[in-house]
């Protein structure tokens, strides 16, 4: 039977917390940027201009057919070179975090866009008619009447997607960026206690995600009750 030795965890907690902060930073940034860009994409998808609609659809479909790891690697391996060339700026070690932020934001936007699009379509068509009949422009109708309702309907789904994002940030492992899992892995390898650290990481993720998704589920049930 394996001899468990959890002693590496306590002294590593400050380091693990730094990693968790990185994880949270990426999650929140990508969520905000992703939702913003996703909203634009969703609105464009329904635009009268066939070109804009097509471009939005192409973007969403492209990002949804490639593994997240590939997107991360694209930005991790190729972006510094691009920045160097475009801006004539020497390489930084910091570009790892920047490339991760850009990658996650662009990737998540494609997923948020689909949720938001469904949300917009779920707002009854009559709402837009009523807004226009009052003299609002299309843009006003969207801003004042449709989007607020769409977001309220879709908020639980957006949150669920964010919980998935929180889990996906662990993939920055491929760029050796030290998020929570990365730190756990480093400590585990350094002390030869990988088993304990991986189990610890799994437990932490489980507790956080389970708690958050339970909250979201409760919120969804309450929304359904009012439907």
């Amino acid at each position, binding site marked *: *039977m*394996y001899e468990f030795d959890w002693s590496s965890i306590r002294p590593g907690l400050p380091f693990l917390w730094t990693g968790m902060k990185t994880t949270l930073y990426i999650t929140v940034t990508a969520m905000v940027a992703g939702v913003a860009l996703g909203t634009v994409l969703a609105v464009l998808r329904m635009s009268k201009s066939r070109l804009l609609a097509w471009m939005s659809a192409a973007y969403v479909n*492209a990002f949804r*057919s*490639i*593994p*997240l*790891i*590939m997107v991360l*690697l*694209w930005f991790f*391996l*190729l972006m510094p*070179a691009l920045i160097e060339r475009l801006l004539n700026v020497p390489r930084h070690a910091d570009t790892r975090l920047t490339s991760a932020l850009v990658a996650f934001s662009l990737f998540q936007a494609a997923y948020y866009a689909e949720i938001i699009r469904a949300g917009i379509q779920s707002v009854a068509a009559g709402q837009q008619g009523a807004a226009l009949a009052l003299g609002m422009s299309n843009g006003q109708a969207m801003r004042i009447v449709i989007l607020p309702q769409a977001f309220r309907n879709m908020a639980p789904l957006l949150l669920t997607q964010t919980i998935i994002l929180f*889990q*996906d940030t*662990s*993939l920055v*492992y*491929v760029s050796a960026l030290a998020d929570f*899992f990365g730190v756990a*892995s480093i400590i585990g390898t350094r002390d030869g206690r*990988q*088993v304990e650290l*991986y*189990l610890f*990481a*799994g437990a932490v*993720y*489980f507790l956080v*995600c*389970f708690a958050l*998704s339970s909250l979201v589920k409760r919120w969804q049930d309450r929304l359904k009750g009012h439907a």
Partner: protein
Amino acid sequence: MYKWRWEIFLEQPPGGGGATYLDWVFAGLRLTAAVSLGAWVIALAWGSVMGVFRTYPNKLLRAISTAYVEVFRNIPLLVQLFIWYVVIPELVPASLGTWFKQLNPLLQQFLAAMLCLGFFTGARISEQVRAGIESLARGQKAAGLALGFTMPQTYRYVLLPMAFRLIVPPLSSEILNLFKNSAVASTIGLLELAAMGRQLVDYTAQPYESFIAVTLLYVVLNLLILLLMRWVEGKARVPGFMGGGR
């Protein structure tokens, strides 16, 4: 200025023994397909069982299924993979663990990846099977029972055949996700498609060509599976139900 050299794919890596870089890429593609298909079989089988458990009128079965789904859905895939690869061999009975650790490394990586992906996807499939069964409403269950079917018979003849037809669309997005998720196996060293992309970047000086090729292959793979699932959806359609055949 970057020099584009698409002919790199026809060149051979130094000391590579006759294979071109293109062969490498296709070897990676084959591994991706193999590990994904193996995982899909596990996921479908195990996920269906768990989905049935979740709806069965038995508290213990429902609890087991709920626990399974919650654990496998709330831990990141990458963490699960490392747990399968590093932790589980240490926790299973000594003989099984030693057997695993003495396997050819490729086999170790393949097995760990396949099991990980299989159980991860199985949790998602179990939720869809559950949704399918629940959407049939209690009426079908009652009708089956009223005819004298036992509960297992009711599941077998009435509920499951219909539930599986209903969930073909969400199942097709699951299999697509599975193929994409297989890329995490590159982190434990499995030389599937994504890992091959990195290899090519390391060996050649042509990172853009390498990545574009690998990315394109994922897109094509995606399209092929999508088309295949569309065909399956067509076959699974029940006349008169949900707008088919009336």
